[in-house]
């Protein structure tokens, strides 16, 4: 039997990642065994099963992979972009392209991540940057 001890102050990766976001820092996991990046944060690598995941900072560049505009009444917050973004590191995440009108976001648009901290809580958003839209 293997007994695992929990270090003082340790948390799961979700809470750690959120604390980093709340402090405005963008981190991404990378597997020390297979070398692939992992998002969302996990306790083990979903590609190879290794638990040797390491946190790395990244430049946040990516491309819009899929896009939709959620149609909402103005009273419910108005129309909203929801995109799936492929980071250059090879992982995909849901987010929003924040500096364009919702229905102006196109697949292939190059984007850069930033952390929006609102009421103390960090959230990964993206802004469109110059580049070829495929």
């Amino acid at each position, binding site marked *: 039997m293997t007994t695992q001890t929990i270090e003082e102050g340790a948390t799961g990766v979700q809470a750690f990642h*959120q604390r980093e976001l709340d402090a405005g820092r963008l981190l991404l996991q990378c597997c020390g065994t297979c070398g692939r990046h992992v998002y969302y944060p996990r306790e083990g690598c979903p590609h190879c099963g290794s638990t040797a995941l390491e946190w790395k900072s990244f430049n946040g560049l990516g491309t819009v992979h899929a896009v939709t505009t959620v149609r909402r009444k103005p009273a419910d917050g108005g129309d909203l972009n929801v995109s799936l973004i492929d980071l250059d590191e090879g992982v995909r995440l*849901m987010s929003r392209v924040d500096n364009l009108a919702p229905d102006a976001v196109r697949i292939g648009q190059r984007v850069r991540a930033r952390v929006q901290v609102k009421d103390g809580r960090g959230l990964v958003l993206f802004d469109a940057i110059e580049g070829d839209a495929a």
Partner: protein
Amino acid sequence: MKTGLDALRGSAAIAGVATFGCGETPGFTDMELLARSAHAAVADAGLTMRDIDGLCTASASAAMWALPVVEYLGLNPRYIDGTMLGGSSFIAHLLPAMHAIRSGQCSAVLVCYGSAQRSAAFGRREIVAARRFLDPQPYEHPYEPMLPVSAYALAASRHMHEFGTTREQLADVAVAARAWARLNPEAFMREPLTREQVLAARMVSDPLTVRDCCLVTDGGGAYVLVSAERARDLPKKPVHVLGNATAVWNRQISSMKDLTITAASQSGREAFAMAGLAPKDIDVVQLYDAFTINTLLFLEDLGFCPKGEGGRFVADGAIAPGGRLPVNTNGGGLSCVHPGMYGIFALIEAVRQLRGDCGERQVKNAHTAIAHGNGGMLSSQATAILGTADAL
């Protein structure tokens, strides 16, 4: 003697089916809709509730749903499967139940579902809010996608981008479903629907309008599975299970590897292999059409057309009555019934077609059918290949 899944091919048959309350049934609870369907399906099989010694069921709300169902129906099942994979569950329940019947663990399995989703006082808004706490998705919910429709809309955006699929082609899926529904007295929406009406309908999550989305109805459905030998002695024409397989690749749309290829490509391949059949051998097709994009994806992934060709395959009435392939002959989740989870209704319609019970919408000389269930956000996929005795 055959071993493995080949040995199970055709070993069990669906002997009874029933639906109840498809549409709007204020005053009925989930359990009451389930129970009415269950009693009717057992009677349809020529059995009584005392003959039922296996139970499969699932609920989108109650985590221990098999318990109240056992209690309510007064069952004492030796085989219980409460696996909850979303809307595909009731098709995924087949193969384990076939194992259980084959081994002698049980002899008559009741698969049943009911939901008062349309009429329930506890509304959809409250349910969405409750699930955010009970089943959190911390990497999607903060972006406020309108789930599930936004997830399917994202997949549709990708299919359009990669393959040139058009909104008109998606609309043709809804138009075909409505044309079938107009032939089905049980269908909830039966007024005529045109491509232009689908395109002009209220946009929900681009590119999907409200007419690209399934209905929200009440309804219950149930079926009874027994051994093929026993089914021969029961009153209704047996519908044999020739193949069944289930696959899950992801839960969230953001974790789907390729938004245009679903796990149906795996479940379909495995179910067809077990059945020893190919798509060209199938007479009737029932696909879980929660959204119009689903029908395209599943026609492709199950092998009815090449990847990317779904839009062109369904255009201009090709899957409508009189078209080249009869798809969703009850009107589907888009026009017939969709009480939260539709999978069991796809299977029941396949059985009714193979029995020849479908009246005006009956597909002539139907000996084989496919019923395909989807769950979550294109997450879980379960495929069943069914056939009459001629197909054994």
